[in-house]
């Protein structure tokens, strides 16, 4: 299996994001803190084969967000996102 086959998109992170946020995050827009590209979370690259879920910028591959869950605890790393615009 090649790396390319492991690449998914933000739709694949929708479930775990729904556990954490009370708004739909795949339709939120986020800004990549590295390159400034703005994309809907549903359209970013997602790798879920790592421990946890890793969201990457589709333009520069920068890690936007990492989410890991284990036994009722979550670790959420959002350092790669400057801001999120969430539709209420």
């Amino acid at each position, binding site marked *: 299996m090649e790396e390319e086959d492991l690449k998914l998109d933000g739709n694949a992170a*929708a479930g775990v994001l729904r556990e954490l946020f*009370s708004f739909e995050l795949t339709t939120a827009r986020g800004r990549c803190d590295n390159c400034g590209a703005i994309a809907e979370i549903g359209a970013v690259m997602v790798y879920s084969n790592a421990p946890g879920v890793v969201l990457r910028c589709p333009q520069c591959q920068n890690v936007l967000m990492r989410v890991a869950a284990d036994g009722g605890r979550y670790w959420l790393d959002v350092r790669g996102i400057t801001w999120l615009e969430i539709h209420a």
Partner: protein
Amino acid sequence: MARAAILGRLAPVRWQLGDVVELVEETPRVKTIALDLPDWLGHRAGQHVDVRLTAEDGYQAQRSYSIASAPENDRLAITVERLDDGEVSPYLAEELVVGDKLELRGPIGGYFAWDADDGGPLLLVGGGSGVVPLMSMLRHRAARRSQVSARLLYSARSLDDVIYRQELERLATDNLEVLYTLTRAQPPGWTGYARRVDKDMLEEVAFGGDHGIAFVCGPTRFVEAVADGLLAVGYAPERVKTERFGPTGG
């Protein structure tokens, strides 16, 4: 004291048990599972559910499956392709029987969703079982008697691998065109496409004008090739919605 509702805030998505009420063999490898879900709050066409299986020893495996039914349908249906080395799909496609219970949660997602009120024209491009969420959109469009012009370009290995074939024939009308490309085997006298989706094909099936909106679903490489092709044809990036299936989808 009740707290004021905040617009757009979603209820927590909870695991719930559904009753399997019907199983339909779509192709030798693909089965549709219709469920009765007492606590279901509705969905939008294109959304998915997470299905969770629990073994006797407590081991759990979870996978996402696109919803195949329209929001207007009484029962929720998912369509599952059996992946031979999968952990969940062989059970769903082979062992599950009517009367069993299935644990799931949803609806999940919102990016890859279409409402009839979103308008069009609507170009749907599916590879293999990537047609499932697109079928939900077409069923929704029919249930709403939407007049939005739509085209489905469906890539399958052979005619026998086409899911929902009879229903798609019935749904096709003046403003819904269903086109197949059969990439591995074609029946005698086949006059349709017989190759992988490419830019030339997309140029032929794309809508003119401002192109409208496109939804692309299938394996990762399929989705990326089609999305690149649509951008080359002139679709606006934000009007091409994609959903990739991964190898862990089993």
